[in-house]
């Protein structure tokens, strides 16, 4: 224990003497949390639309008015020429085109069914998908409005628009996040990723740095045991990691008003276990590689898996089965699930037992591997 205390003192001194890295460790996650927490949404407030109205009737103008009035579409330009509209789309002057065919109103009255063409710039497919949902919804509402006007007999007793005789009243409820607030979802996840990145990078660069500088050999000839050595490398960054997380959660609460329905003690208990995993993986890398350069590229590769396959940016459900397995293996995924469950859904200890147990097993395995891998003999 005494040895460990001295080793820890050395590590903390080393960290204190490199103020640049401390500044970076605190400032970067926080600045990024503030910026990225605002960026990660899939709701488009306003986008530019080109109108090609070949009918120019009250009905077609009504349709365009509804689109503009929704606030989702800003009518950037209008002309009867589809060629001009396509040009604007190609140059990214507009992101969508609405094309009302000639005789729109006449067909609407005569046949009751009429097509409207919507063209989106699917170069940015996510945006195109969102805009299509908005436009489809607005057009359906307009059709219902017209039904009311033209066939009052079909209107229900309450005056609500109906599509047919029998009406199924489908009510949608989004549980845990009824306003579909993206920040409640993204901010905890981004915070976890940032803390993980810091932890993995610090861990992986640490031992190999002493290897490169030659100071590891000096430590190897001392009576320090392997476990003590790994513990001395682990504990300082573990403390820093928890501090960054606490700081990040405060920002998440103050700047983004993230709900905190469950117990914060539970979050930190899980974080304490989780950081052992993240740092342990970093330290394990550090014992395997020969140079800091290699350590960095391995860290980069692992962090890319963490970032892109933990279900934060694209749903795990959509991934091919083998990728879902990789996602299941990622400790980040389990911690994000746990954080979200506790903060957003208010889950208690028993509800998050599974991810917590998974993290504990990971921590045990990874730390054992790191201690085993670290050999006091240099080859």
């Amino acid at each position, binding site marked *: 224990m005494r040895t460990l205390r001295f080793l820890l003192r050395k590590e903390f001194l080393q960290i204190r003497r490199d103020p640049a890295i401390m500044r970076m460790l605190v400032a970067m996650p926080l600045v990024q949390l503030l910026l990225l927490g605002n960026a990660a949404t899939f709701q488009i407030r306003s986008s530019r639309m080109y109108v090609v109205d070949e009918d120019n009737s009250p009905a077609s103008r009504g349709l365009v008015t509804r689109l503009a009035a929704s606030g989702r579409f800003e009518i950037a330009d209008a002309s009867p020429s589809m060629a001009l509209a396509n040009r604007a789309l190609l140059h990214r002057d507009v992101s969508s085109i609405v094309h009302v065919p000639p005789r729109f109103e006449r067909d609407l009255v005569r046949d009751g069914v009429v097509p409207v063409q919507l063209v989106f710039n699917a170069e940015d497919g*996510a945006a195109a998908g969102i805009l299509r949902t908005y436009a489809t919804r607005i057009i359906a509402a307009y059709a219902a409005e017209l039904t009311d006007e033209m066939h009052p007999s079909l209107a229900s007793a309450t005056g609500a628009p109906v599509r047919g005789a029998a009406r199924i009243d489908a009510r949608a409820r989004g549980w845990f996040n009824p306003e579909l607030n993206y920040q409640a979802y993204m901010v905890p996840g981004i915070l976890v990723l940032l803390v993980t990145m810091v932890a993995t990078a610090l861990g992986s660069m640490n031992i190999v740095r002493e290897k490169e500088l030659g100071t590891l050999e000096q430590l190897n000839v001392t009576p320090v045991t392997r476990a003590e050595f790994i513990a001395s490398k682990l504990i300082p960054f573990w403390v820093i990691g928890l501090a960054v997380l606490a700081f990040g959660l405060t920002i998440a609460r103050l700047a983004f008003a993230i709900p905190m329905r469950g117990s914060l003690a539970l979050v930190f208990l899980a974080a304490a276990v989780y950081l052992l995993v993240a740092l342990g993986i970093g330290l394990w890398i550090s014992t395997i590689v020969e140079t800091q350069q290699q350590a960095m590229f391995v860290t980069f590769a692992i962090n890319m898996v963490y970032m892109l*396959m933990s279900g934060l940016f694209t749903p795990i459900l959509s991934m091919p089965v083998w990728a879902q397995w990789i996602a299941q293996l990622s400790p980040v995924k389990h911690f994000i699930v746990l954080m979200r469950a506790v903060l957003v859904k208010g889950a208690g200890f028993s509800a998050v037992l599974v991810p917590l147990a998974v993290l504990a097993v990971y921590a045990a395995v990874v730390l054992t591997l790191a201690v085993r891998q670290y050999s006091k003999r240099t080859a």
Partner: protein
Amino acid sequence: MSAMRGFVVKEFHHILRDRQTLLILLLLPLAQVLLFGFALRTDIEGVRLVVVDPRPDASTLELRSRFAAGGLFRIVGVEATPAALAPRFQAGRADQAVVFEPGFGEKLAHEGRAQVMIITDATDPNTGSAMQAYASAVVQRYEQEIAARGGRQGVRIVPEARMRFNPTLESVNLFVPGLIALVLTIVSALMSAISLSREKERGTLEVLLVSPLRPWEIIAGKVLPYLALGFANVLTVLGAAWFVFRVPFRGSVLLLLGESLLFIVTCLSLGVVIAAVTSSQRTAMIGALMGLMMPTTVLGGMIFPIASMPAWLQPVTNVVPGKWFILISRGIMLKGVGLAELWQETLILAVMMAVLLVAAVKAFRIRLG
């Protein structure tokens, strides 16, 4: 100039001698583009659905079978009361629930209206709203079916949506250009940042600084070998995009290669600047990795549309080099446009490159003084 040549040769030797690292540098970008190119998808299937049906009848069974058909939904449980839902959702064993009111079929037949509630786990608002839309569409189609049976239908405006440049919204076409930009940014910046900061840490940079080489020559000598390596990476990842993912290359391949070259020089210069302002390899690498990975992913427009960001944040995305390369590569690959349409993006990248190179040279002059 011969000093310069000798320096470049030395750098090449450095790279070629460390076979292990060289292999990592050549294979890592390709491996990542392949891995994530397959893994990143946004289409949803296999939604775990719980049905709450207090009094099953012909109509509820019919609507349930509509949900079960099509493969989008997987019914994982049928309950009699909504009380059973909360624990299932909290433990993450269900994504969505359809709750019928008691006597659903009877009410539908006699009163002409019946209620069904669709509960979605909206913790992930994106998946949540998509699932909500899919489930509502199933109910709506069923409703229209009943209406058609009764022969009473109102006015319908049928929107025909065309997805120009990517008609099927192929996930691969959306993610692969972004992935290429992300991987090239980080690998290029890390490579040059490491090579410089290592010399700094080992003290060999001092030797270089007192040599007759001028700062810009040192930087050029550092960047050139990695430019070759970076370009090899461009060829492998674009090859993967073409042969493996079948991303269309509608525009000029030559232009795309030229733009890629411009882009990697920009990122390499960024790495040099990072190395110049940091004092150790560790700081440089953590700075490069942390400073570039999440911002390029989130602010570059690879996953989240820039149009969906708040107005104050949208100009901030302009400093992300990856954003411009994504616009360029999507433009060439998917839209088939040329320099006539992409000159602005190209110019911005070129200006970025110039600024970064000047900053890098300046940062080294300061150290000399």
